[in-house]
C-alpha cells in the first residue's frame, strides 16, 4: 500500500540528484562576490522551500485525517513533519554556513526567510513532546492533527508577517533568493529543487512503508501472544479477523445466560 512506486521514485530521485550535482558544480557560474561557497545556496534554498511545503502538506493531511477518521492520514502527516524537521536542521545549518561564508556572520536577522524559518522550526519542535505525551493512540492522532493544522495555517502567515516587517525596516533592492537570477543560476536552482522534492517524497514513502510493516509485525505478535494465552486457558484458537474477537459466551458454567 505504501510502498507502491518506490522503485521508480528512487530512480528518479537519484537521477535528479545527480543532475543537480552536475549543474551545481560544473554549470552554475561562480558568483563574483561570494565565491565558491555561494553554491551552498543551491542546497539551502530548495531545502527550505521543500521543508515549508512539507509542513503545509502535513497540515492538509491532518485535515484529511480528522474528516475521515482514518489514522493512516495522521501517520502520513507525522512522517511529513518528521522529515521536514530534519530538513529544517539542514536549512539552519546550511544557512549559517552560507551567511558566514558570504557576510562573515553566522546568522542574518535581516533575512526574512531565515528568521521566519527559525520560528516555524521552533514551533514544530513542540509537535514531538506533545505527540508522545499522549498514550491513547486515537487521542494522540487527533491532537497531533489539530497541531499540524494550526501550525500549517501559521506557516504562510508567519512568512508574510516577517516579510512585511523587513520591507519596512530594510527595503530590499536586490534579492538573492529568487527574483532576478541569471538563467544558469535559475536552472540550477530549479533542478536542485526538483531533486530535493523527489528526495523528500521518496524518503516519506520509505518511512511510511517501514512504519506500516512495523505495525503489522506488532499486531501479529499481539495475536500470537493472545493465541498462546487462550491455549493455556483451554479455549479455542483466536478467530480470524483483525485483533481478537472474544464472543459474549459465558465461560463459567453455572447459570444459564438468557439471550
Amino acid at each position, binding site marked *: 500500500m505504501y510502498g507502491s512506486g518506490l522503485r521508480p521514485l528512487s530512480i528518479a530521485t537519484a537521477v535528479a540528484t545527480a543532475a543537480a550535482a552536475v549543474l551545481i558544480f560544473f554549470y552554475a557560474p561562480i558568483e563574483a562576490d561570494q565565491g565558491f561557497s555561494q553554491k551552498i545556496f543551491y542546497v539551502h534554498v530548495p531545502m527550505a522551500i521543500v521543508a515549508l511545503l512539507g509542513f503545509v502538506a502535513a497540515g492538509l493531511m491532518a485535515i484529511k485525517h480528522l474528516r475521515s477518521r482514518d489514522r493512516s492520514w495522521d501517520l502520513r502527516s507525522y512522517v511529513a513533519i518528521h522529515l521536514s524537521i530534519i530538513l529544517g536542521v539542514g536549512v539552519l545549518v546550511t544557512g549559517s554556513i552560507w551567511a558566514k561564508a558570504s557576510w562573515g556572520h553566522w546568522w542574518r536577522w535581516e533575512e526574512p526567510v531565515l528568521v521566519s524559518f527559525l520560528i516555524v522550526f521552533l514551533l514544530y519542535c*513542540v509537535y514531538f513532546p506533545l505527540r508522545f505525551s499522549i498514550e491513547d493512540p486515537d487521542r494522540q492522532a487527533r491532537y497531533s492533527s489539530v497541531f499540524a493544522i494550526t501550525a500549517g495555517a501559521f506557516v504562510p502567515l508567519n512568512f508574510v508577517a516577517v516579510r*512585511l516587517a523587513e520591507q519596512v525596516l530594510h527595503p530590499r533592492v536586490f534579492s538573492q533568493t529568487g527574483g532576478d537570477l541569471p538563467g544558469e543560476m535559475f536552472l540550477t536552482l530549479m533542478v536542485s529543487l526538483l531533486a530535493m522534492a523527489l528526495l523528500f517524497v521518496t524518503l516519506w514513502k520509505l518511512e511510511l512503508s517501514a512504519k506500516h510493516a512495523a505495525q503489522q509485525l506488532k499486531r501479529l505478535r499481539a495475536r500470537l501472544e493472545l493465541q498462546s494465552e487462550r491455549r493455556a486457558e483451554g479455549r479455542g484458537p483466536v478467530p480470524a479477523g483483525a485483533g481478537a474477537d472474544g464472543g459474549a459466551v459465558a465461560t463459567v458454567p453455572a447459570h444459564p445466560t438468557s439471550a
Partner: protein
Amino acid sequence: MTRAAAVILRKDLRIELRTRESVPAMALFAVTVYVLLHFGLDRDTLDGDLASGVLWVTLLLATVLAVNRLFANEREDGALDGLLLAPIDRTALYLAKAAALFLYLVLLELVAVPAFALLLLSPGLGGALPELLAVLLVADLGLAAIGALVAALAAETRVRELVVPLFLLPLLVPVVIAGASATEPLLAAPQEAEGLGGWLAFLALYDTVFVLVSLAVFDFLLED
C-alpha cells in the same frame, strides 16, 4: 450556542473573581517587568522601537500565564465531563474561554499600559492613545483566539506546562511583529500613525484565520 457560551463565561468570570488567579498574576508580572527594566536599564524613557518591543513581549509572556490556567477549573473534579454531557454545542466552550481570555487581557492592559507609560515612557503616551487602543484590541482578539485553542490542546496532556509556552509563543510572533511595528511610531516622539492601517489589516487577517481554524478543530479536542 452563544447562550451556552454566555452561561459558561459567566461561570468562569465568577470563579476568577473568587480565586483571583489569572488577572492579578498577569498584571503583577507585567508591572514587575517594567519596574525591573526601569531600574535595570537605568532609564525612564525608551526609544520608539525598544519601547514597543518591551510592551508587546511583556504582554505576550503575561498571556502565557493566563493560558496555563484557562482550563484549570475544568480539570478539577471532572467538571469538563459535566460540560460534555450537557446538550450544548461544544464550540460554546471555546467561545467562552476565548472571551474570558480576551477580557483578562483587556483588564491586564488597563493596568499594564499606564504602568508602562509611567515607568518607561517619560513624555507619556500623548495623543496616540486611541490608535494604541485600537491595535491592542485587535491584537487581543488574536491572542485570545489562539490562547484558548492552545489551552485546550495542552489541557489534558502531561507536558502542559512545557507545551503551552513553546507552542503559544511562536504562534504569536506575527502578533508581536504587527503590534510592535504598529505601536512603534505611536510611542516615538513626535507621535504619528505611520502604516497603522496596514498592520491593523494584517492583524485582522491573522485573527480571522485563527478564529476559523480554532472553530473548525476545537470539537476534535474534546471528543473521545
